[in-house]
């Protein structure tokens, strides 16, 4: 490969990591509740929102209160968005006059966006009104990212033991929006418009082309969604073709800017973790472990040459398309800038691994949360081997912690494999066009892996718009989203008041532990999923379908 590509990749990583480090200082002042010069601007805004919401942001919550408020808020938000989609014909800002969205598709859509998944069984440009794109989709993309970030900082507080509890959900939620996600998205939106992403409420434009045929230019509030969909690792696009569609991603520059946006917060949160637990090296260990596996995935994906082919956009070329696909699954964003059918089985396997592990580095907030889950399991295994009491950050890891962490780990394969089996045994897979062959298996296996990992990239697309897949993936997405958050909050809640041992037996803030963690994550993922990768991408590869299907 041309060395320029390697240099370019290193430049991107450097830019992301430096920016993420600076952002983590800001995040620390927002969630570590330190005074900041920005308070003079943001405090009045936050206080107004707390007043309108009728909440007391200073009230300390137990983990159960924190979780239930998060869950109920998410239910109400999804319900409001459902009403917007289901009655869009009778609501304003529908210049194309799109009919109401059928209930099962509307249900799948709002549960998909609210769970930070953004699996899309619809093509937005021909299904959703402007109001639905704004108050249905963009709205939930903000709030799901804010929910993930809130859960993560609450978990960090408990694990650190320095905050006297895990905090107040509404305080974290509102601050995530006003001080992090909205300012970042505002800047990113304006940059994206400058790079050619439309932002307009004037309705689609019918034009006569050079040779006189009719063409519809589907302009709308695209930039205001494209920014948060990448920053919030949501991934659900304005258009069915997602970030392959030129209005969502017009040029190579916009392409790399969007890759930067999706990497930014997930790279920043491990730094924040280190600062919140009072030892920056704990954060670097998490980040190095995550990037090590991400880098392995990238190198594997580039081991086989991918050539510019069908299903890829010319302006991005093969390199950017492969880079995007590995990154969007490693960061569980799920936006796509090329059809998944364009890629060879090694790229697809790398994509699967990102979604199976969920923390390399994973989505906004929850990526680091999953990393802490792996750390708890790893420390338990290492403790067994060394015959020591397992400890993390000076606190004992109890049998209950390990049990909850293991349930959080095991819910993932359960939510993927059982629905996949049901889809094939009931004929639902065949009805959506997936045959009893490796390609058909990959299609359905990928669908539920993506749903459970809250990723959102998929092979099915609008073919998944059947009652079976709308309802089954909706359930998988919500269980896969909220079960691990509840379990990790529970561990964190009990950790928050635990006695700390100032001189721990096992050091978790160095490269040796990072290496142990990486091996342990790979072993857990491989032991769990290997048989299914064999009958999917590996078998397809052996059958000679090297390049795509």
């Amino acid at each position: 490969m041309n060395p320029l590509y390697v240099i370019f990749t290193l430049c991107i990583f450097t830019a992301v990591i430096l920016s993420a480090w600076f952002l983590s200082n800001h995040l620390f002042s927002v969630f570590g509740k330190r005074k900041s010069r920005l308070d003079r601007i943001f405090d009045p805004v936050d206080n107004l929102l707390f007043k309108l919401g009728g909440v007391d942001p200073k009230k300390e919550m137990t983990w159960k209160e924190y979780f239930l408020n998060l869950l109920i808020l998410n239910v109400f938000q999804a319900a409001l968005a459902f009403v917007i989609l289901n009655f869009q014909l009778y609501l304003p800002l529908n210049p194309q006059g799109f009919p109401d969205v059928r209930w099962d598709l509307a249900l799948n859509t709002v549960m998909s966006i609210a769970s930070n998944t953004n699996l899309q069984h619809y093509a937005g440009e021909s299904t959703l009104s402007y109001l639905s794109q704004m108050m249905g989709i963009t709205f939930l993309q903000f709030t799901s990212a804010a929910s993930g970030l809130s859960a993560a900082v609450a978990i960090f507080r408990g694990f650190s033991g320095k905050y006297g509890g895990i905090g107040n959900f509404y305080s974290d939620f509102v601050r995530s929006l006003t001080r992090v996600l909205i300012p970042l998205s505002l800047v990113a939106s304006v940059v994206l418009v400058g790079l050619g992403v439309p932002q307009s409420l004037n309705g689609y434009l019918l034009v006569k082309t050079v040779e006189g045929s009719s063409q519809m230019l589907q302009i709308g509030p695209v930039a205001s969604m494209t920014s948060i969909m990448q920053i919030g690792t949501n991934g659900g696009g304005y258009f069915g073709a997602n970030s392959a569609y030129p209005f969502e991603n017009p040029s190579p520059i916009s392409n790399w800017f969007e890759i930067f946006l999706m990497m930014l917060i997930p790279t920043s949160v491990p730094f924040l973790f280190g600062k919140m637990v009072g030892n920056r090296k704990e954060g670097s260990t998490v980040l190095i472990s995550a990037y090590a596996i991400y880098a392995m995935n990238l190198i594997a994906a580039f081991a086989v040459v991918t050539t510019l082919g069908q299903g890829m956009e010319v302006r991005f070329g093969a390199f950017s398309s492969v880079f995007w696909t590995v990154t969007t699954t490693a960061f569980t964003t799920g936006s796509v800038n090329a059809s998944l059918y364009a890629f060879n089985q090694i790229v697809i396997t790398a994509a699967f691994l990102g979604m199976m592990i969920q923390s390399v580095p994973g989505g906004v907030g929850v990526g680091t949360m999953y990393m802490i889950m792996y750390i708890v399991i790893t420390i338990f295994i290492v403790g067994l081997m060394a015959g020591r009491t397992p400890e993390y950050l000076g606190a004992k890891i109890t049998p209950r912690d390990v049990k909850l962490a293991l349930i959080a780990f095991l819910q993932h394969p359960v939510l993927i494999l059982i629905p996949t089996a049901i889809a094939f045994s009931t004929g639902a897979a065949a009805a959506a066009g997936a045959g009893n062959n490796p390609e058909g298996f990959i299609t359905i296996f990928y669908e539920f892996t993506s749903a459970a990992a809250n990723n959102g990239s998929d092979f099915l697309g609008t073919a998944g718009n059947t009652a079976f897949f709308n309802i089954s993936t909706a359930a998988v997405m919500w269980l896969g989203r909220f079960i691990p958050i509840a379990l990790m909050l529970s561990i964190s809640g009990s950790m928050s008041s635990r006695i700390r041992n100032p001189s721990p037996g096992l050091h978790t803030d160095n490269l040796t532990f990072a290496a142990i963690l990486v091996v342990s994550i790979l072993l857990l993922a491989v032991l769990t999923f290997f048989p299914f990768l064999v009958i999917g991408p590996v078998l397809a590869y052996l059958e000679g379908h090297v390049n795509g299907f």
Partner: protein
Amino acid sequence: MKIPEKFSAPLRMALVSMVLCGLLFPVVVTGIAEVAFPYQSVGEQATLGNHTVGSYLIAQEFNASVFFHPRNDSASGVDPDITISDAYSQIPGISNATGLSSAILMNTVDKFVQYTMISFGTEYMNVLKVNLYLINTYPGIYSHYVSG
């Protein structure tokens, strides 16, 4: 009916966040976009004479053999670009149909080269930009093929 206290805070917060993120945010971005980037915010529209004939970002169909043609397959289905090698392969046909020499057409293509990695990588060009350039530069040849 009175809403139980447990549900009133999340319900009110859901409504507040919907208005903030789903209405205020996109409307403010639209306002800024229309003032700061009037050309980009409405889709980089291409004009011929005084008429809008499409967007540089969205491929349009060309049937006449005097034009460069976009590809039909691709992820988005409206890929506005072709690789330079694809463009070169179309040159003999266009040269035959227009009488323009291959050298002139190659020079034209070279003027519009872009790179997939911003400054390196695969060379490509925007089909509509090149075709509009040809129409404006050689009106005697092309006016016949352009719709009124």
